[in-house]
């Protein structure tokens, strides 16, 4: 009995001799158990064949697997790409403002204190006259008055602003005035005015108030600016600038009559520092039909 079972492999491989083949096939036709065993042998051989081919395929593609995988299907590719994008973005982000503020940065003492990031200058949209000598009554006289005020505005000098921002050399945290002065120097008037927003910050500090007043003027916040300039008219240091800019605030606010009175007073003072400007403004003002 067992002799047939041991010949199944040879039978399936076609290696059974002729004389044994006939006897085996006769037995197959009468023995269902042998038929089942032959089928099982055949299935096992198919499985072994499957294992062989798979091993062959695997050994062929395994050395290339690391490189055969599409690069975009690899998680590391996306991690690398994201890192590169972040790196480039960081370089761009940190370099752009530094380039614009390089002079200011070099002038500052090295401290470990918190620094306000150099702000992007705020663009103040102001009505500009096409020709300063050609102020004509227009459909919007208020805009023309504002433009006239801006034309004659006496801004704090750059050295004044930088001195204000540079008062301390010791590595202590910067004062609001310093931060505001830095912002003003960067033409970020909104930030400058925001830093000095609280009245108690300018109450005892004329420099801070003067800076805030000019920042507000630049922001077209003429009421606030007029208030600060009015207060500063009693200041020894800023009294002339304050008077002049207060006059301009009145013009910008459309208070023509008040402005005329103020201007007349200034023209009456022979030693008024802004007399030349006042004369020029008077001429323009006379030609200006409001």
């Amino acid at each position, binding site marked *: 009995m067992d002799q047939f*079972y*041991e*010949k*199944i*492999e*040879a039978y399936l491989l076609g*290696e059974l001799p002729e004389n044994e083949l006939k006897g085996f096939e006769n037995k197959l036709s009468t023995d269902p158990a042998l038929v*089942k*065993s032959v*089928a*099982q*042998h055949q*299935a*096992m*051989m*198919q*499985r*072994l*064949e*499957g*294992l*062989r*081919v*798979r*091993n*062959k*395929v*695997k*050994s*062929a*593609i395994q050395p*290339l*697997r690391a*490189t*055969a*995988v*599409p*690069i*975009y*299907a*690899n*998680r590391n*590719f996306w991690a690398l*790409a994201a890192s590169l994008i972040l790196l480039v973005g960081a370089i761009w982000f940190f370099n752009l403002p530094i380039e614009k503020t390089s002079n200011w940065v070099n002038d500052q003492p090295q401290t470990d204190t918190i620094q306000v990031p150099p702000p992007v200058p705020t663009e103040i949209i102001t009505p500009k006259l096409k020709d300063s000598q050609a102020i004509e009554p227009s459909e919007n006289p208020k805009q023309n008055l504002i433009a006239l005020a801006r034309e004659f505005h006496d801004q704090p000098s750059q050295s004044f602003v930088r001195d204000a921002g540079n008062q301390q050399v010791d590595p202590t945290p910067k004062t609001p005035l310093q931060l505001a002065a830095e912002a003003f120097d960067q033409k970020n008037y909104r930030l400058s005015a925001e830093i000095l927003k609280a009245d108690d910050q300018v109450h005892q500090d004329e420099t801070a108030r003067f800076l805030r007043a000019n920042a507000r003027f630049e922001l077209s916040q003429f009421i606030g600016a007029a208030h600060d300039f009015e207060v500063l008219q009693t200041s020894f240091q800023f009294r002339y600038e304050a008077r002049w800019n207060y006059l301009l605030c009145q013009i910008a606010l459309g208070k023509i009559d008040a402005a005329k009175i103020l201007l007349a007073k200034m023209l009456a003072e022979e030693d008024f520092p802004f007399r030349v400007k006042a004369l020029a403004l008077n001429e323009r003002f006379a030609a200006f039909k409001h």
Partner: protein
Amino acid sequence: MLQHGMARTLNLFLNRKNNAACAPYADHGALFAGLEREATDAIQCLSARVSGLIFKLGKTYRLTDDDIEELICDCITICVQKIRAGKYTFQGFSPASYVIEIAKNRVRNFQRSALRYDTTELENIGDQAEEPNFGGLAETELLEKLLSKLEVNCQNLIRLKYLEERRDKDVIEAKLTQYTTIDALKNHRSKCMKKLVEIGAAASLYNL
């Protein structure tokens, strides 16, 4: 678009080894003939041509990278087995297209089994899904496990014959076993096969 272009460029550089494997297989017929011979470079070329698409396909079905790699191996194995069995004959089309179709069927079946859907009648999936795949990862791992239950001498005899396709004459000449005659070798291997079949039956391997 830009990312895809960059990926393609990098892929081109990184896959230059695979592309070199395809040099002798410029046309589909040559590749098919190479696969018929089970040439290593033909298998590598086929792998290079199908990997990208099967990866994308696998990602669509949310397969892991490891699963996709096994899927590629499975599909190429099935292709080679079918060529060897004469069930896939060359008709002018690329063997890569055939492998992609196998992959599509397999991921669909994978999804069906995952969702427990019985939707085999919904699509024309050919005969691949119906036939047992003895070259699949699960099947081959099971077989390796059964083989390991045999004594070492038997494992050796079966591996030499069925996995390494060594001729009996060469095995005797190279003295790769303890047997000195071909008859003794065949006789003992036959007994080993019988044991392996019985182990398989005990493990409910056959659906007979």
